[in-house]
């Protein structure tokens, strides 16, 4: 019999071969699977030391079937800038250059190179898979870790600061395209990568990426936890194109229907929040409410 059709009409080809080293139920693997389906063969990826680096495997093999260049932790966006410059010089600017780093390599050590590349209008796609901590080195705290979360470097007090709003920082660079995504909504993610591939200039895509060992939940719940993040507004699906803000997918529905869930529905499912105080929970809810109302205002304009 014929292999039944792909109901979602997306590129059926798989670009990550099975038998890779990512964790069971890894949110990054799921997200990367759809990102590569959208980006296709004519792509060069650059990536720093990170979970993705481990997913890409150890010498002399790799599970990934697109060309990829490893780089140091601070330098992902600069590595992409060099690829773009080199390919331009060699008249191969048809190849899409994609930088992919975690929140550590984007919010923290990688922020300078990213800001520089974006400010120069470098023609590339920068992807941040945000698993809200330095997960590859053992789940330490990053500036992307939400308030109240236990990590191996906030093991008693929990994280004291709210999550850094890097998306706002990227918007301040006036880039060509910015989008936020989640592997729990793979079609929305796929569509945004397809769109981004066709746009010229600096494109930034943020992936809110659930992580079973780091967030302390059972691997089978990855898609569920990612959905709850969107249902509670802790992750918001939207895109900004030419300064115009637009909710997408589930976030659009929530914006229209006003049925956003309280954040407690999300935090109670994850072991990393078991020491979160009532005060921190209130602060987190207030942070989400403020951002949501900002987004609502922008969507109306």
């Amino acid at each position: 019999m014929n292999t039944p059709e792909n109901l979602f009409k997306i590129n059926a080809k798989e670009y990550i071969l099975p038998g890779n080293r990512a964790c069971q139920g890894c949110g990054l693997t799921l997200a990367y699977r759809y990102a590569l389906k959208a980006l296709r063969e004519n792509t060069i990826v650059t990536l720093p030391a990170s979970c993705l680096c481990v997913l890409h495997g150890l010498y002399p093999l790799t599970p990934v079937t697109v060309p990829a260049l490893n780089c140091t932790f601070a330098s992902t966006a600069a590595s992409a800038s060099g690829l773009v410059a080199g390919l331009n010089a060699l008249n191969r600017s048809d190849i899409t250059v994609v930088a992919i780093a975690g929140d550590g390599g984007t919010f923290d050590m990688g922020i300078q190179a990213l800001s520089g590349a974006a400010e120069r209008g470098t023609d590339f796609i920068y992807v941040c898979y945000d698993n809200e901590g330095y997960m590859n080195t053992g789940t330490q705290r990053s500036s992307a870790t939400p308030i109240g979360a236990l990590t191996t470097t906030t093991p008693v007090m929990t994280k004291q600061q709210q999550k850094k709003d890097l998306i706002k920082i990227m918007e301040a660079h006036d880039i060509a395209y910015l989008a936020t995504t989640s592997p729990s909504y793979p079609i929305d993610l796929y569509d945004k990568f397809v769109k981004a591939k066709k746009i010229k200039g600096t494109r930034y895509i943020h992936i809110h990426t659930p992580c079973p060992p780091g967030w302390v939940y059972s691997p089978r719940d990855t898609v569920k936890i990612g959905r709850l993040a969107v249902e509670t507004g802790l992750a918001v699906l939207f895109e900004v194109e030419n300064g115009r803000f637009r909710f997408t997918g589930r976030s659009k529905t929530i914006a229209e229907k006003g049925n956003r869930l309280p954040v407690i529905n999300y935090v109670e499912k994850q072991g990393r929040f078991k020491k979160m105080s009532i005060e921190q929970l209130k602060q987190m809810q207030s942070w989400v409410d403020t951002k949501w109302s900002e987004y609502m205002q922008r969507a109306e304009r």
Partner: protein
Amino acid sequence: MKRDENIAAMCDPAPGEGGKTGDWRSARPVIDESKCIPCVKKKSACFLCWLYCPEGVVKTTIPVEIDLTYCKGCGICAEECPPKAISMVREDKS
């Protein structure tokens, strides 16, 4: 045996880079074809197990096939299956 002529580390794509990751499992997905929607309808339908599998080891065939050499047993397919046709059965029980 041939020598490694690379002077810088260049890795070739291959399955099983991390070994037979099916060995990682403590439970394996088992599909009840009487509940599985594409099986019951005998046509392309649902396939959320294929959609949500991080490893891409689920095939959109009827009946649905899962590559157990590499399936890590995460259980996402079982969690997301709308009719609950997939159960995670412990490997140490036959």
